[in-house]
């Protein structure tokens, strides 16, 4: 089946069975390997992408469901400069091994777009679906909390 959607601002067309996981379409068909497969069952958040702005686990979305949608992956997060979330992760040591980082950035970007001044608790809730085995989360939360300051009005 041919599925057409917009990926990182570019119209794309893929020919796969309709139940193919969006994650596999991104990585195998479109060669966008920034989204990682951690668990493959919606637990870890390493495959987090945004569909029409909304963060989702791309391992749980059949590609048929993104027909006509706007999909954004980590590759599409930065504009001319790195996204403020990415800059903050660099500055505050929010990344270690890096497997969870793309997913964390996508969840954090979605949060900050909707709520530029989240409380620490709101940051924790927004990132609760992204598991990290290195950082202990503290530096990630500091980074996301500072990203709002860096971009702040």
């Amino acid at each position, binding site marked *: 089946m041919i599925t057409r959607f917009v990926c990182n601002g570019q119209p794309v067309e893929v020919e796969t*069975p*309709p*139940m*193919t*996981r969006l994650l*596999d379409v991104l990585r*195998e068909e479109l060669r966008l390997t920034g989204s990682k497969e951690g668990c*493959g*069952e*919606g*637990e870890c*958040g390493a495959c*987090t992408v945004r569909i029409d702005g*909304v*963060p*989702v*686990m791309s*391992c*749980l*979305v*059949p590609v*048929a*469901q993104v027909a006509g949608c706007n999909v954004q992956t980590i590759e599409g997060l930065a504009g001319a400069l790195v996204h403020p979330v990415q800059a903050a992760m660099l500055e505050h040591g929010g990344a270690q091994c890096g497997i969870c980082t793309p997913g964390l950035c996508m*969840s954090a970007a*979605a949060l900050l777009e909707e709520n530029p001044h989240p409380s620490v608790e709101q940051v924790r*809730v*927004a990132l*609760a*679906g*992204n*598991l990290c085995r290195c950082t202990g989360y503290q530096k990630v939360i500091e980074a996301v909390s500072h990203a709002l300051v860096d971009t702040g009005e």
Partner: protein
Amino acid sequence: MLRCEAPVYRPRTLTDAIYARADMPDATVIAGGTDVMVYLESGSLKPTRFLDLWDCSGLRWQQFITGGQFCGAGLTCTDAIRSPQTHPLVREACSTVGAVQIQNRATIGGNICNSSPAGDTLPVWLALDAEFELASMRGRRRVPAASFWKGYKQIDLRPDELLVGVLLPQTTGETHFRKVGTRMAQSISKVIFAGRYRRGVEARLAFGAVGPTPMRCREAEAALVAGRPVDEVVALVEAEITPIDDVRSTADYRRKVAGNIVRRWLASL
């Protein structure tokens, strides 16, 4: 990556969906995919074809109606959390489902029909005396939540029917929701509780993950309404539930926690 070649039918209207269901009773129904995609990838689901309700209009809304409220089966947990119309118990249960990414796709209809004994919203429907509205080419019928889950993963839904939504009657009383799991997010419940209590009038003590289906503790409810001592109510709860030892917890722990949840809630009132 598991390759699945099964075709998918994606109706855009409820009418189309109901016709399609009549034509393909063998199809696996999918909405947000947060359960179905896991079963598919693990190989436990052997699908012939899929009926995908994600883009089916007419399922994703809620509104107040005479004597209560209707919640469309296609409402996502995020929809329910954000809508000011949502009953507080429903909002609280939806907030405990997975985490943000899951809440953005998981639907209340999916939670109800997946019928996991540990489904986070399920005790809430029991506590609120919900009725489920089922539709087929033969018409519509309503089934009380209390009789919908018939056994482990067995529901009162015929092969040609779809769950359209949930009717919540107007109810009174204090309510309480509690999920006990390994961690706050992304964990499946060890014990889940939803309660409603109006002193001397009525009580609902509903649990999940303590038996093959979500369940009410009817004897404990009756004792509570009759004004029996809390110890007696708790003892009845512990006797009525039928928890098991499994990967997530033990029967003993679940029984103790179930009793404690009720005891602590009643003490707080």
